C-alpha cells in the first residue's frame, strides 16, 4: 500500500517536471523565433535609403536663378577640383552645403533619421572634407553607409559619403 502511494507521488512529480519543461520549451522557442526573424522592410529601407537619397540629390538640377540650372553632381565635382566657381553671390562649397542641408532637412531630419554627410577628396571624411553636414555624431550606433565617387580632372577622387545611423 505504502509502495503504491510512493509510486503515485513520483508519477505526480514527474508530471509537474514534464509540464514545466514543456512550458520552458514553448517560451524558448518563442524567444528564438523573434530573434531569428528579420524585418525585411527595415533591412531594405536601411540599405536602399542612402543609395536612393544620394542618387536623387546628385541628379537634381539647381534653379537657373541660383546656379545656372547646373546639376548638383557637376557642382560637387567643381567643388572637389577646388576652383572658385561662384553661384551668383556664393562660392560653390557654401552654396552646395546650403542646398544639400535643405534637401536633407526636408527628408531625413523630417523623418527623424540620424545621419552624417561628407564630401571629401582625401581618405579621411572627417579631416579631409570640403562639405560636412550632420545631425548626429553617430557614436555607438549602427551605421549604414553609401559612398559615391567621381574621378577628378586634377587627379584623385571626389567621395560623397552618407551614413545613416540607428
Amino acid at each position, binding site marked *: 500500500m505504502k509502495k503504491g502511494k510512493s509510486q503515485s507521488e513520483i508519477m505526480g512529480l514527474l508530471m509537474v517536471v514534464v509540464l514545466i519543461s514543456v512550458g520552458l520549451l514553448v517560451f524558448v522557442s518563442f524567444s528564438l523565433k523573434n530573434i531569428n526573424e528579420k524585418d525585411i522592410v527595415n533591412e531594405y529601407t536601411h540599405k536602399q*535609403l542612402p543609395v536612393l537619397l544620394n542618387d*536623387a540629390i546628385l541628379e*537634381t538640377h539647381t534653379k537657373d536663378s541660383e546656379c545656372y*540650372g547646373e546639376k548638383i553632381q557637376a557642382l560637387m565635382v567643381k567643388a572637389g577640383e577646388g576652383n572658385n566657381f561662384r553661384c551668383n553671390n556664393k562660392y560653390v562649397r557654401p552654396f552646395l552645403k546650403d*542646398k544639400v542641408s535643405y534637401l536633407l532637412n526636408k*527628408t531625413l531630419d523630417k523623418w527623424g533619421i540620424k545621419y552624417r554627410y561628407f564630401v571629401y577628396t582625401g581618405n579621411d571624411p572627417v579631416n579631409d572634407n570640403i562639405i560636412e553636414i550632420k545631425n548626429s555624431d553617430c557614436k555607438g550606433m549602427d551605421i549604414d553607409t553609401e559612398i559615391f565617387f567621381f574621378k577628378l580632372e586634377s587627379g584623385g577622387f571626389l567621395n560623397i559619403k552618407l551614413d545613416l545611423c540607428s
Partner: protein
Amino acid sequence: MNRKSQIKLFESIAVLVIFVFLLAIGMKFYTNVQLGSLEEAERKFKRLDSLKSSVVLSNLPEISCSKEGITDSNCFNLYKIKSWSDLIKEDAKFTDYYVTVLGNSMIEIQSIYPKEKTWTIYNSSVGGSYDYTVIPITIYDSIEDQNNFGILKIKTFYGKR
C-alpha cells in the same frame, strides 16, 4: 471509510478543477500571444505590400524616365505621371487593373526642389489604418530638361473594399 472516500473524491475533484483552471490560463495566454503575432505578421505584410508597391511603381514604364529605351528606376517623368494619373481617374478599366497591381493605396509625388508641388497620382484608399513608405526620387521635367528632387509617398490601407 465512506467519509474517507468522500474526502479522497473531493481531493481529486479539487486537483482536477485547479488543473483545468491552469490549463485555461495557459490557453488564454497562448491565444493572446498568437493573436499578437498574427497582428504583427499582418502589419509586416502590409509594410511589405507598401514596399512592393514602391518597387513596382519605380519600375512602371508608363511613368518612369527612359532614354533610348533604357529605364531609370529611381526617376519619374513629370508629364508621364500627369497623363497616367488622368487616365486612371477617367477610365474605370484602368483603375481596376492598377488596383490589382498597387492595391488599396494612395500614392503622392512631392517635388521639393527646385519646384515645390505635390501630386496625388493614384488614390484607391479605403480608409482606416494604413502603413506609410517614403522614398527619395528624381522627377524629370522633359520640357525644361530639368531634374527635380522629390519624394514618393505610399500609404497602404489595412481595410478591404
